[in-house]
């Protein structure tokens, strides 16, 4: 494997993400470390969702449901005394299986119908979490009084502080980016992009549409579930209200604004939509938060009209857009 062309940039970026939180932590700015950790979680979700939306062109408006499924499965396992590392594969299997179960019947639907069905599924999951008191403790969330989500242990070391979880999140994010990057340039990735561009032409080129879409859909669901697993161990609490439709919309907006199909675009989108508002909130007060969503709404419309490829589009997609005469 040769080094990517922009390796100095990547090296500097890696150094920053490795050292900056450590410096902030030493300076005692724990809030900043927490925000950076949160950005990391959203980046994992963004990378996962990008496989569905960015590569395959399936607009998934209920992705947050898989984050929720991962978080709840992990919480239940953890309360039952199963450790993070043992629980992780179980969470992945549960997330992947449910994703496959949902995907099998709906993946043949046309794009906009698929969007609405995934939206419906996302809301069903949230409503079930609220109403299934016996398992999920309803709106009060997990763990119940007297129960505890187990700590994450790495050999003899127990992760307790935000900075510990930050590095755990970073490792998982890098794995997700690696998977996503290898996928994009694999035979499967090229098949996904072919499907996005023209399903009929892809079929005629011998691509098994149903199976290829399902594989992408499941991989992306597993990544979402893993993000939920990490989040619940870090946060030590989970409740249905974290998984509203607007969270899914926020994820989609991150991809649209940042640039679909490109990992750097996703990072930019997350920083713009999660980190910047957090920082502005701590400096400008809560009044700003109310106006944040108004700005997002406008930004989505403006970007989709004037720069449909996003702020930092993938190089391949930008070329394709240019070749097609500026139309996606």
């Amino acid at each position, binding site marked *: 494997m040769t080094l990517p062309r922009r390796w100095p940039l990547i090296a500097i970026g890696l150094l920053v993400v490795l050292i900056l939180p450590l410096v902030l932590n030493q300076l005692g700015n724990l809030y900043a470390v927490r925000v950076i950790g949160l950005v990391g979680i959203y980046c994992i979700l963004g990378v996962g969702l990008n496989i569905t939306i960015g590569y395959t*062109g399936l*607009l998934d408006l209920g992705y947050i449901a898989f984050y929720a499924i991962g978080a709840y499965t992990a919480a239940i396992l953890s309360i039952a005394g199963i450790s993070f590392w043992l629980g992780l594969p179980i969470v992945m299997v549960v997330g992947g299986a449910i994703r496959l179960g949902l995907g099998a*019947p*709906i993946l043949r*639907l*046309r*794009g*906009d*119908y698929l*969007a*609405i*069905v995934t*939206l*419906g*599924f996302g*809301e*069903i999951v949230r*409503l*079930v979490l*609220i*109403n299934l008191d016996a398992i999920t403790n309803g709106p009060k969330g997990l763990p119940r009084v007297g129960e505890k989500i187990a700590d994450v242990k790495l050999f003899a070391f127990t992760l307790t502080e935000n900075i510990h979880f930050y590095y755990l999140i970073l490792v998982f994010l890098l794995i997700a980016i690696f998977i996503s990057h290898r996928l994009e340039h694999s035979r499967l990735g090229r098949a996904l992009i072919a499907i996005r561009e023209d399903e*009929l032409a892809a079929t005629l080129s011998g691509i098994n549409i149903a199976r290829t879409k399902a594989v992408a859909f499941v991989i992306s669901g597993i990544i979402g579930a893993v993000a939920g697993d990490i989040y619940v161990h870090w946060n030590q609490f989970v409740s249905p209200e974290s998984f509203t*439709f*607007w969270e899914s*919309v926020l994820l*989609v*907006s991150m991809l*649209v604004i940042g640039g679909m199909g490109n990992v750097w675009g996703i990072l930019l989108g997350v920083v713009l939509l999660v980190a910047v508002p957090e920082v502005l909130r701590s400096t400008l007060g809560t009044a700003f938060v*109310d*106006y944040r*969503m*108004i700005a*997002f*709404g*406008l*930004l*989505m*419309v403006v970007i*989709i*009209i004037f720069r*449909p490829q996003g702020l930092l589009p993938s190089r391949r997609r930008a070329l394709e857009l240019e070749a097609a005469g500026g*139309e*996606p």
Partner: protein
Amino acid sequence: MFFQQLVNGITLGSIYALFALGYTMVYGILLMINFAHSEIFMVGAYLGFWALSLLPVWVQGWTPGYFILVFAIAMMGAGLLAVTIERVAYRPLRRASRLAPLISAIGVSIFLQNLVQVTVSAQSQPYPDTFKISHYEFFGVQVNSLQIFIFALAISAMVLLQVFITKTRLGKAMRATAQNHTVSQLMGINVNFIITVTFLIGGALGGLAGVLNGMYYGSIKFNMGFFPGLKAFTAAVVGGIGNIKGAMVGGFLLGIIEALTVGYISSAYKDIILFAVLILVLIFRPTGIFGEEVTEKI
């Protein structure tokens, strides 16, 4: 119990049917899901709210004229809003991929909801109860005058729309545009004008549904459009999206299903059941009850 829930369901269904017409008309012509339609419903309800509370007392004394004026304001405002949204957020994307207008519509929806939340109120507000409600009982089934009023108004709006679509020149042009934009244009139809008219009518009906919804439930909130919007969209899909009669039948069907779920199972499950209906219909009969099989153009 059954007939009581049926009455409630038909009232609810009247609102959903009016609301669903906007989704189905826009889909019929542009093949796009107008996600912002639920916000047009919400804005319509707020316009009605202001008209009901702010109109001078001498107008309020004259009951029929008062309500006509309130509905006219709400419908006109909602219709114009829908037309503006189309101009600003959808028209530039007419040649873009199918998902682009949907994303743009979601952006408009976020914008409007939060605008109302920030500038008007984040809390739910009581709707003025200027409508004098009298209760009747037929064979043990409670019916009130508001339910009869909503049903009658919805039916007359639908009949008018049906006459407009089938009997007038403009209606004919709309049907032609729904079939094929290019050929309609060659026949001398101003397609952009037809699309504007479609959004105007759909938006006005959505606004009417919003006011009726506010009067029926007695309160409004900035996010009141979301769930009814999904239900109305489901109604449009169940009836066969793009089909006007389908949206009406689908609306009543959904209202009745919801009322029966509330009556016999639990109100906690009414939204789950409706989403399940949407998913099942899309999987097993995506063309709905009245929809025609459309072959994908290559």
